[in-house]
């Protein structure tokens, strides 16, 4: 069809260019936004948690939002930097790691916990009936989420140190990615201990999972926007929409994000900067 148009002369050529540009503009305008979450749960659970919130945002942005599932924290950060992601739900440590590598990552809101507080704790868990021989730390196996997870090595190492009086490096540990999987692997007896987010650990108490240590409160999970792929108007619209979400609305969202949001303050992540040497976190566990 375009060939026929071009053959009709110069004037037709301009019409063709204008049409082509219009089609491109329309396709850009109609592009779906990509949302991803840290792979702290399985895909179905992530859909359950975030689909209501994304529908809420779609109505404001007049744009559909699609899920993108990332296999690991590192992969998520890499794809964000490559502009394959417009919005990401991330914990404080991976947020810090991302912000260090990509200045265009902008945390806009953080999600409250059940008590309305803006922050959460990481915990150390074990299966209640399991009897641990703390005197022999080399026999202990510890399940961790991700190297860049706040409740991974970053929080669990000090909790293990305090509980077992031995460094995590003296024990066997392995990254098993998801918080749920940390809980389940401890329940299954594959690991003696596990480090995870407190709210998720609580949901496994009905299976005998015991919380044996708590970390200090760290900044809540945040929604990170990509300023390279989103316009300032869109960013402002998302921020305003989320901050103005009525309680009835966010109560219907996933459990992890159903307690409201707060705007990110400029010093929210400042106090984490000093005690985190992100580069020193082992990228792999010592247990195969």
């Amino acid at each position, binding site marked *: 069809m375009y060939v026929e148009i071009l053959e009709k002369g110069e004037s037709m050529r301009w019409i063709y260019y204008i049409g082509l540009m219009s089609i491109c503009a329309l396709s850009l305008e109609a592009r779906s936004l990509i949302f991803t979450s840290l792979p702290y749960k399985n*895909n*179905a659970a992530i*859909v*359950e948690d975030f*689909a*209501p919130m994304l529908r809420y945002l779609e109505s404001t942005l007049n744009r559909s939002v699609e*899920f993108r*599932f990332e296999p690991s924290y590192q992969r998520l950060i890499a794809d964000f930097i490559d502009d394959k992601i417009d919005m990401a739900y991330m914990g404080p440590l991976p947020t810090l790691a991302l912000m260090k590598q990509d200045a265009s990552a902008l945390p806009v809101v953080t999600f409250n916990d059940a008590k309305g507080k803006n922050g959460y704790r990481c915990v150390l868990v074990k*299966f*209640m*009936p399991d009897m641990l021989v703390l005197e022999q730390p080399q026999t202990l196996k510890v399940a961790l989420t991700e190297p860049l997870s706040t409740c991974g090595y970053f929080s669990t190492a000090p909790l293990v140190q305090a509980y077992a009086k031995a460094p995590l490096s003296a024990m066997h540990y392995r990254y098993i990615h998801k918080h*749920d999987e940390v*809980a*389940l692997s401890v*329940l*299954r*007896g594959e690991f003696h201990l596990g480090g995870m987010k407190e709210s998720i650990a609580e*949901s*496994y*108490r*009905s*299976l*005998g*999972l015991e919380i044996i240590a708590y970390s200090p409160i760290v900044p809540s999970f945040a929604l990170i926007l990509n300023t390279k792929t989103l316009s300032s108007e869109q960013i402002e619209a998302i921020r305003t929409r989320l901050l103005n979400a009525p309680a009835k609305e966010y109560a*219907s969202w*996933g*459990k992890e994000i159903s307690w409201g949001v707060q705007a990110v303050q400029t010093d929210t992540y400042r106090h984490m900067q000093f005690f985190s040497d992100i580069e020193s976190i082992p990228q792999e566990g010592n247990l195969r």
Partner: protein
Amino acid sequence: MKQILLSFSLLGILYLLFFLNSYAVKEREIQIILDGKNQSLESSYKAVTQMYRISIENYFKYVIMQPHVIEILRRSLHASEEEKALLRGNLYRSLYPLYQQELVTHGIRQLHFHTEKGESFLRFHQPNENGDLLIDVRATIKKANEERIFVSGFEGGRIYPGFRYVYPIVDQGTFLGTVELSLSYERIVAELSKLLNAQHYLLLLNKETTTDVVFEKHQDHFVPSMISERFMIENPSISSLSDQALKSPLLIQINTLLRDNPRVQKLLAYHKSFSIPLLLEHQGYSINFYPIFTIDDRLGGYVTTYDCAPELVDIENKYLTIYLLGFLTLAIFTFGLYLFLMQRKRIVLEKIQFETIVTSTVNGVMLLTNDGAIRFVNTATLKILGYREIDMLGANAHRLIHVHPQSLDQMPCPIIESIAHQRSYVGEELFRTAQGEHIFVHVNLTPFIQENRSVGSVMIFRNITEEKKAKETIEHLAYYDSLTELPNRKLLLDRLNYTVAMCARSHEYCGLLFIDLDNFKNLNDTLGHEYGDVLLQKVAKRLQKTLRHCDTIARFGGDEFVVLITQLGLNEHPSKEQLRRIAHKVLKEFSKPFYLIDCDYRCTASIGGTLFWDNSKTINDILKDADIAMYAVKKSGKNEINIA
């Protein structure tokens, strides 16, 4: 115009009947293919679910019903919540290897223990979701729990719908609860795909019985199907089947067509298996729907397969050809019919014209067979010949009506000969009427040709008897004197001319007598013309009586008569004497009185004569010589003879 309309109407009706019949046959052919595919789907589906039922029963009997599992469940009957949590954890720990290595590997997505009260005790696929009451929303659990029997079927659930197999756990008479193993649809599809050759598979979930009963927070596991608002599918984010369905351009196109098709929407409401044929971009597809029911006989959903069906394209092409050929055949037939009708109309018109002509003509028309039998006669024939039609048909025409002067052996009948040789014949013949009267007819006989062979002859004739008489009368008037019935001057000159020519050849002497009645004027003047006329008639008769038949006696005008006498001889003198004797004989006869009306009258005549024997004298010369001779007699005293 009427024929055209009739032909087109017939074409339309015939093609409509042909099309409807062909269409019905085509639909039957398509239905046979669709039925085959749907039957395959049903058989395969039943085979797969039955296979899983057997294997799941084995899992239940030989793997799940282990003493330590029974012990945990027995202890949980009276345990506190905290104790239950530990027992739940222990159960999870003890059966997880089975769940992960056996069940999940073989597609059994859910292993779910329920308490004796119908609450969820432990979901292996979602361990932290427990304690919720299921008995009100899960018919399988309720039935297995209350009736303590094995229950299986498709059913909705709090998290996922699935193909459920629920077993009651009874140990030493104590009911410990129930355990449920469920299959995902994807697993069913994996097995179905080994048996079927479908391109895509989808499970349409009936909202009312499946997705409406899941936990609120799990509602996002499902999205509306593209086919119907009453049916959902699993969220494409967590189901590869749904992902294919929503991303495949082909499936999007097919599903949109199905959604916009009222028949599909109607069939979906019937809860029966059906298949829909589709042709897209020269490819045939069969979309097959097989209903699956919950254990309380409500529709759980439809197992849907998207099959390639190239046979549909073949059938479509075949019937397009049939429709076209049928149309052409009927068009040709109709055109032939049109020509036939036109021909028939023309024949009818020609027949009417022929009958009108034959009936209204005054000429007799007969159709004769090759052996002369009469096949047809028109009204004029009957009128002319006086026969009844029944008497003529089948009779031999020659014997019945033809008057042949001689026997056929001596002189063949021209009509019979013409028929026999398929020739035309035109001539005058003599026919016999029913009353025996003979009539002259003018006959026109023409061979009657049908399909390149003669089947007889058409004879057209007309009665010319009166015509012939009239002609004879006219001729008579032209050559004879109306008063005396003697040849007139014209005929005399004609015969004289002929005689002169004959004399030139035969060299025989002939003679001419010029007779003029004496004192005829006086008679007219004294007694009147009628007496004069009678005298002329009497003179004519006496001359005829007196002279030879071969001699020509003519009234030349007024009271003048001329007698042409032939064959007098080869010599002049004897011939002259012979002529003189004849003249005397005439004169002698004149000496007798003539009776005129009421009186006798004596009349004399002056006779002049002359001889001629070759063509040296013209007829005028001859007449002049005789006239002069007669005039000499008149001058010399009348009642004499003068032969020049």
